[in-house]
């Protein structure tokens, strides 16, 4: 399970960035959750963001996706400044995410959960919807076909009419990934995708992350706690502690870094 098995050379931060974060700082009242955070994610990379609980990892995701406004610093996506944009705009620019504590639309069907996420690409509008116009039906069919395609990739096509809340945990996680993929994002942010999964499911998840990344030419940035996942899929790792970056590099290097061992690996990971 060592390395990521790819043939090409690992990318580094000197390559042109898909996502660039510069001096990002977020304060909640007196608490500094993220402090002077700078990094790049290069196209086609699979980068991991790790660190102990409360290090500010999810806050970084929330800042990138526009859910929090940054106190200072800037975020560039494909060279364009996205800090200050609303979450739905960030998504429409091509950054999709999943949540640590799965956030599905629980009363909607599995199919509808995915169709909602393709909304901006296939909305007929109020008038066409009310009139059930040919345009409406064409769009609905297109959206449905696209959603079904992603449900099959994630192995959920049989569950299309089930309510999201009735799915077992593992399927809910997969549905959230299908929902994040459907609009064809360029960058996928995964917040602890393996949380709560058993070793078998984790293995399948890693397989899945690798295959969708190849198939859709995705760049992936993920937060993870389980070392097995980080070592298994990540090409590069950024380590955070107390809101700051304490190390960057290949997983094997970072694992040897004394600061990291002290902050994280040595204390609460087996």
């Amino acid at each position, binding site marked *: 399970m060592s390395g990521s098995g790819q043939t090409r050379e690992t990318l580094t931060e000197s390559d042109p960035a898909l996502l660039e974060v510069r001096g990002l700082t977020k304060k909640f009242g007196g608490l500094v959750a993220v402090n002077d955070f700078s990094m790049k994610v290069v196209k086609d990379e699979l980068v991991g963001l790790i660190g102990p609980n409360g290090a500010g990892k999810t806050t970084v995701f929330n800042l990138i996706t526009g859910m929090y406004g940054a106190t200072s610093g800037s975020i560039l996506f494909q060279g364009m400044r996205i800090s200050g944009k609303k979450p739905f705009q960030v998504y429409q620019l091509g950054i999709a995410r999943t949540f640590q504590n799965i956030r599905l639309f629980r009363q909607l*069907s599995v199919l509808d959960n995915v169709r909602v996420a393709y909304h901006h690409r296939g*909305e*007929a509008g109020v008038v066409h919807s009310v009139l059930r116009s040919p345009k409406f039906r064409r769009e609905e069919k297109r959206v449905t076909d696209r959603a079904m395609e992603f449900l099959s990739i994630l192995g959920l096509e049989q569950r299309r009419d089930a309510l999201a809340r009735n799915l077992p945990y593992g399927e809910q996680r997969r549905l959230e990934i299908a929902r994040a993929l459907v609009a064809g994002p360029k960058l996928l942010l995964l917040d602890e995708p393996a949380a709560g999964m058993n070793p078998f499911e984790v293995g399948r998840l890693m397989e899945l992350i690798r295959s969708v990344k190849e198939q859709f030419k995705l760049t992936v940035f993920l937060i993870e706690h389980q070392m097995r996942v980080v070592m298994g899929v990540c090409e590069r790792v950024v380590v955070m502690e107390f809101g700051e970056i304490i190390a960057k590099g290949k997983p094997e290097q970072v694992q040897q870094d004394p600061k990291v061992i002290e902050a994280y690996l040595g204390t609460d990971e087996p």
Partner: protein
Amino acid sequence: MNRRGFRFDLGWRALVLAVVGFILIQVLMWLRVINPYWQQIGCLAGITAISALGLNLVYGYTGQFSLGHAAFYGIGAYGAALLTRTLGGNIWTMMLGILVGAVLAGLVAFAIGLPILRLRSDYLAIATLGFGIIMKVLFDNSDAVFPMMGGAAGMTGIARLTNFTWVFVVALGAVMVLRNLVFSSVGRALISVREDELAAEAVGINTTKYKTLGFVVGCMYAGVAGALYAHLYAYLNPANFDFLKSIDVLLVVVIGGLGSISGTLVAAIGWTFLLEGLRVALPASVQDWRMVIYPLVMVIFMLVRPGGIFAGTEFSFLKPREYRRKR
């Protein structure tokens, strides 16, 4: 699936049911089995249903808790009544009046919704409650600006134009529009806002836009209902649009089941006829008890079936085909 052209429909089963029901009621009315008194109650039930469908869109589908629905009902009622009183009452001004009621309510909803829809759940409820009370005060003092509106004394001289046909046709249209709206990409976006606003934003839904859309369209329904109401009793009083009236509509929506068109229809009709039925069934000596029985029914209902009659489901004839599969 592949038929061409527009399908402004409810599905043929629902339409057949509606037409058969309408003819049946017309025959019963013609045979005098349904007397004018019950006709009026029937109209009131339909009007309540239209207004409640609107609130269901706002609260049941979009998840925005409004306690000020009656204010929009009032705006539609006064707006339409002013129009028909000015232009004279006939079928054309009535149509125009309904349109004006809807547009006025929608405009006010847009103006008030933009700032207050940022508030969440209970805070939004309080803000809309406050707005409702402000509107009531304005209706009470309306004669200072529009003498025709009569202020707290009430507005008289409105043409009696609303009849069962009007109510039925408008209500049918209201059901069709709402049904086609909620079973579409727009409807999915609205429901996603209700389910999880943050996740909706995270999958590209402009939640501000959809909250406003749901609120404005829902309030337009109230405006339409108000316009019909104004021409049913030919008299408007600000007391008909106070806080309790908002509660009444909310009650119909919750008893029917949030996010269910079928539920709202059943509850609106059932509730209106229960209230009036008690009026007829109870002997004169215990008439006062009617007002005691109905809150009791309300409490017992909530204790027994907190999710409402339909709890998020629909009559299958109201669903588009693809939604009819088993879940």
